[in-house]
């Protein structure tokens, strides 16, 4: 009985973890954990990328939407601004999931880099459109690049948790 309950609990955690970890990443992005560095990496979008490839069936679209809305609410951006970015990333990876599942890690890493450039253009475009001025995209580019650079460590950690 107890073992059965424990097993169910473990299974429940296993099913919830991908989405839960994305919400945790959204909250962690609000702390200056890496304050020593001149830039802060973004944990959320590599996390969405990883889980969409490996556990897409456990990532419901409304969950990604809610994570984006929470990110906007906590980050002070207009509601829907980062949500769009998350959904674009999710949709793009979902479409190429079979290819990415069978691709080498290096290839998957490169795809993340190019996707981060695409996301940067989307975020910069929306922010520039809203503020009606050409914003400097350099900090965003550096932040996204730093997130991509840290992706192997994140993958290592998530692989351990996943297995």
């Amino acid at each position, binding site marked *: 009985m107890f073992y059965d309950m424990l097993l169910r609990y473990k299974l429940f955690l296993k099913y919830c973890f991908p989405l839960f970890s994305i919400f945790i990443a959204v*909250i*962690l*992005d*609000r*702390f*200056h*954990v890496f*304050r020593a560095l001149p830039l802060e990496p*973004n944990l959320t979008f590599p996390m969405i990328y990883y889980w969409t490839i490996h556990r*897409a069936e456990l990532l419901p*679209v*409304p969950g*990604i*939407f809610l994570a*984006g*809305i*929470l*990110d*906007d*609410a*906590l*980050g*002070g*951006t*207009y*509601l*829907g*601004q*980062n*949500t*769009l970015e998350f*959904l*674009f990333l*999710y*949709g793009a990876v*979902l*479409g190429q*999931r079979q290819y990415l599942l069978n691709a080498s890690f290096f290839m998957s890493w490169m795809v993340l880099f190019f996707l981060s450039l695409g996301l940067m253009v989307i*975020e*910069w475009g*929306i*922010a520039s459109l*809203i*503020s009606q*001025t050409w*914003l*400097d995209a350099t*900090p*965003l580019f550096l*932040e996204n690049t730093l997130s991509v650079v840290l992706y192997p460590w994140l993958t290592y950690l998530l692989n351990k948790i996943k297995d």
Partner: protein
Amino acid sequence: MFGRSNKPGFGLYGRRPWLKRAHQTFHLYRKLFLVFVFILISVFTLGLSYANIPFATKVRVFLTDLTTPVMTVASIPYDLTISTKNKIYKWIYTYHVLDDLEAENVTLHTQVNRLKSLEDENKKLRKLMKMVPDRFRTYITARIVAYPGRPFVKSILLNAGAKDGVEEQQPVLTEDGLVGRTVDVGDHSTRILLITDLNSRVPVIIEGINEHAIMAGDNTDHPILKYVKQISKIKVGDKIKTSGRGGVFASSTPVGIISEIDGATIKVQPYVDLEALTHVTLVTPLVDHRLIRME
């Protein structure tokens, strides 16, 4: 026979792999269609939020209120690490700091005595002039629970809200100078728009030449001065303080110093290190002390 089986070719789809592929493709396209629908919802939400529809603001405030306790708890280990680091730092440099403090104490004692006599004189003069007593401000100190998330937004989240007496458009300070103003106020959380944010505008005055200007954030660490008439008279190192125009910021609050002049672009270095903030002080609206006495 009809259930799932581990034997190859006898699974849910039997000997029909095309059915499995069709099923997977259907699920993929169904999910992609759902993504498309939610992208449309996001665009609609963005439009509502941009148009400052009260409902969108309420949703934002509700979400920040909901997550503030989580953020407060989550920030405890981080705050503990920082405070331990500071304690170790203080412990190492105690002797050096003590020497400096003793010297400072002597200077401050002299200044306090001088200020006391000035205060007495001020009171007497006010009485002679039959001056209406000044209204005073009250202060609320709150802890920061979330920092700016993305490069295009410079705002912070506090763990105090309307139930603690916070209101919208209140100036936010530290002992060093101006930090920003309150924008979204929930019951238990408040968002502060920093002076470096693109949407921030602060009416300021340049000390020495008494030149009025508007300090505008540009998402960098150095806001710029706009609408300056006498650029030639301004030099690097000039002090900037609030002018009090507009009624949001009280006059003479220290803001920063001019750090760079490049043609018509004048950059300001704020006194406050906005990246290293842990606590801030919110200045409540002016309160008439005579009303408080009546209460």
